[in-house]
């Protein structure tokens, strides 16, 4: 019986795992002429907002992109302050819902002695207040890991674009595109209803994936905070494309690769977007799957 079991396992593994082989591919692209990149996102939360300006570097090179200084950067006519690496607003700056903001950048990027002008606009969406945040166990017992975070909020009629960021004990877990959740709701999917929405991006267990193959360990009593962000359309689309580019590609399900398209006018890459956020927190319960601190 053990023999048959072994054969069965081997056959299965042969069939399934044959597709799992990877190997280094010695193939590199040529570098490209540097292109200007402008990125900045406004939120309704009072804080210092930043605009970053940089140049692309060769994809397969050793250099990492660094920020550069422009001649002038303004939002709605107000100049921003260069702090040595980025442009900053005042610390009390908060974008207002429904208002349109104009970003303007003057820079001689191509070094021809002439200043080029780049600009973009974003209209800040209206907040969808996060009315409840709860944990839902995926186990039949209903009180053990893994948990899903359930966000309760009222969607408004028409197309709305949502993002969600997760904090764990006030440490931003969603500090990367692939750990940040986005979703859109419209008349075609679900529209204008009260939702208790399961956020599938984060399956809450005792350890979450973190950087450099490390884990972010969770304990009973840890506080999870979700910021439900209503995104401007151009920002949502930009994030959506960026997530596709950073995800694993497989021929069966992945489309052709392509550039992440932003809204900067004048020929620069990047995005100038905005969002309106709303937060709630929940505490991880004592349960068999979570250790205590």
């Amino acid at each position, binding site marked *: 019986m053990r023999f048959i079991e072994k054969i069965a396992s081997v056959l299965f593994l042969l069939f399934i795992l044959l597709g799992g082989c990877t190997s280094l591919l010695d193939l590199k692209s040529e570098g490209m002429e540097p292109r200007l990149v402008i990125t900045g996102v406004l939120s309704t939360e009072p804080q210092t907002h930043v605009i970053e300006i940089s140049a692309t570097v060769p994809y397969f090179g050793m250099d990492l992109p660094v920020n550069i200084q422009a001649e002038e950067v303004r939002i709605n006519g107000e100049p921003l302050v260069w702090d040595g690496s980025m442009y900053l607003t005042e610390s009390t700056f908060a974008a207002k819902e429904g208002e349109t903001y104009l970003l303007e950048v003057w820079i001689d990027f191509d070094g021809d002695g002439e200043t080029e002008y780049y600009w973009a606009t974003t209209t800040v969406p209206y907040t969808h207040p996060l009315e409840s945040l709860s944990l839902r166990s995926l186990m039949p017992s209903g009180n053990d890991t893994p948990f899903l975070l359930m966000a309760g909020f009222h969607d408004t009629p028409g197309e709305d674009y949502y993002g969600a960021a997760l904090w764990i004990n006030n440490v931003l877990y969603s500090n990367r595109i692939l750990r940040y959740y986005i979703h859109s709701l419209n008349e075609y999917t679900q529209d204008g209803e009260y939702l208790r929405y*399961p956020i599938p991006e984060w399956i809450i267990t005792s350890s979450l994936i973190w950087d450099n193959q490390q884990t972010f360990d969770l304990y009973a009593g840890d506080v999870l905070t979700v910021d439900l962000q209503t995104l401007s359309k151009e920002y949502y689309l930009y994030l959506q494309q960026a997530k596709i580019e950073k995800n694993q590609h497989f021929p069966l399900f992945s489309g052709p690769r392509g550039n992440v398209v932003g809204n900067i006018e004048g020929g620069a890459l990047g995005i100038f977007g905005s969002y309106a956020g709303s937060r709630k927190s929940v505490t991880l319960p004592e349960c068999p799957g979570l250790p205590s601190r």
Partner: protein
Amino acid sequence: MKRFSLVIISVVLFLGQMVMTASPIYAQEYFTCSGKVLDAVNGETLQGAVVKVSDGTGSWTLTDVRGQFSLRLPKGEIVLEVTYIGYKPKQSRLYLDANKDLLYFLTPFSYYLHGITVFAESPAHRLRKAEMSIERVDAQVVRRVPTLFGETDLLKVVQMLPGVQSASEGSSGFIVRGGSPDQNLILFDNATLYNVSHMLGFFSVFNTDAVRTMTLYKGDIPARYGGRLSSLLDVIPADGTSRFSLDGGIGLISSRLSASGRLGGDNLTYLVAGRRTYADLFLPLAKNELIRNTVLHFYDLNGRLRWRVNDKNFLHLTLYHGKDRFKMSDMGLHFGNSAATLHWNHFFSDSFFLKVYTTYTNYNYDFYGKTTEMSMDWISRVQDAGLRVDFSYQLTTDHLFEFGYTSNFQWFQPGQVIGKSDMNSGPQIEQDITMSRRQGFVNVLYFSNEHKFPDQRLEVRYGLRFTRFDNVGPTTLYKVDSAYNLLEDEGEVIPSGRFFHNRHGWEPRVGISFLATPNISIKASYSRTSQYVHLLSFSSAGSPLEIWIPSGPSIAPQTSHQVSAGVFATLFGKNYEASAEVFYRNLDNVLDFKEHPNLLLYDKIETELRYGKGKGYGLEFLIKRNNQDLSGWISYTWSRAFRTIPEVNEGKPYRAPSDRPHNVNVVLFYDITRRLQVSVNWIYATGQPITLPEGRYWFFNELVPVYTERNSYRMPDYHRMDASLNIRLEKPGKRWKHAINVSVYNLYGRKNPWAVNYRMRPTGEQYLEMTYLFSVVPSITWNFSF
């Protein structure tokens, strides 16, 4: 004077000799020698059999679609030789002193041939017919090609024909002359198949036991067929035999069994065939619960009935049903095809007959997942019901007229997802995302004529096809402007049964063949084709989760013009054949997607598509050897394919995904002894085009790639060698035959890339990592027939 007299005498003698030689011709009596060639096993007529007079004059002809032939020959003794690929030739000696009507029954070779005919078409036929860019392969060749996982596969053989390449490693999808896989029309007994993959493309839906022959038309498609730009793969099912027979094979992960025979008298024969994989059969014995409950298999069933109602009426019924099942934990994917064809042949007279086909196909998939709290079910379906009426009228031996009508109704349900939560408290969530149903109604009229000129050296084929395509409600119609923005966000709701849009097109087809010498012919052809259904797929590998949609007000049909020319020759007593073809294709409204298209469950798909022009050109060389201990073929193809779409790649021309300039196929069969047979194939193809980033920048703590030109780089070249050894175990003369087949796929373990992903070292340096599917894959199968 003496010299002048000698000249006069010589001239007189010469002229006299001419007159003496010529006069019997004018005086000789001629008779018609006509007849029919039939399969001795099942009585099927054999089209394309060569009937040759062995009298040194080289008179010969081919049987027509009714298996009939006719030769006008002088009085006297003649020897007629009848040959047909895959059958034992027959000779008969007769004295022609009156019109003769003859009947020839040819006996098919057994499975285990000594030597092999690699293409199911006679060299004479290939030389003379005004058709080109066509490959016919018999099921026996498919059985001899080395296998992957022990399962013979028709489409893997198709991928080794000149001008054809695999869409990707392990896939059933194929590329013909630089066209995309969805530009190939695949018919199984005239029923259109929309997805021909089992197991994500590792196997095709065609069970070799249930297939008789397949014909691949690489562009020069007959006027009676259409609807795709690149090719037609016409798969003809096998008929039942008049004597009961049982065939099968037992392999490591799959087995198959077929039975055929007659029911009652000789007029009704049947064939049933089935196969199933059982990679998961022993999994319930595993300790791991996840593995224990995993389901992973496919099965398919074929059925064929042939009823000879009387001498003028024949009925055929072909049935197919296949399903793939994959289930792990509470998540699963089911997909499969069903197809049925009812085919009626009616003979009004010896020269006028009718074929009527009614067909139905259904392809659907169901992707589902479930937890204790929620469930999701994603379904999609394509259905096609068709009627085909083909008339053939042999006006004279020099003119074969074909005309007819086809009608197909197509239903497309691109996708519907129903998500449900099952919470103990709070409101329930039920999300239903349904893409609008789309329906198309295609009606076609066609005619064609094959005109053989009296000297038998020139043959011309010309035809015209008219297609009208209607969009029919119910649906939600989304229209876009020239910038692909929606004219109305909500779309227009079209009620059921309303014909709301139509398109039509004329498709001329012309072919000419000139027999320059008895062994060399020169051919040329032109064809225009249109495609009214389109595949929307993220996949380059034949995903089961594919979506088909019809043309509509904002989705233009794709069209193609193709010209081809070539030289065809038979060498060394017709044991060798060689050909060289050149082709050029020009495509309009070729379809691609905008960057980062939203194809999954997106109803307003019109906003995601982009249209432009395409072109392809190339050369194909083929040499093959038939009926020898060492048989096979070697082909080399050089071809290019480009697209120009204003909104893609900044409007500059770019390589089509199928642009792979160099392709070499070597397929060899060697009979060491009567018991031992070896088959080897080697495939080489230039690497697939790939888009690589050339720059990067920071955003959201990630390095975002920047691309400059689409498909400007290539994956490493593809090549692999497969080999198989067939050991016949039966005793000579016994009806019970069996053999062991040992195959090795990818003999030297070439790591051919299937997917490429970006990786970053801790230093920030990026590198590429490829995923490859197969290293060396051995398999063993025991085949038997009774």
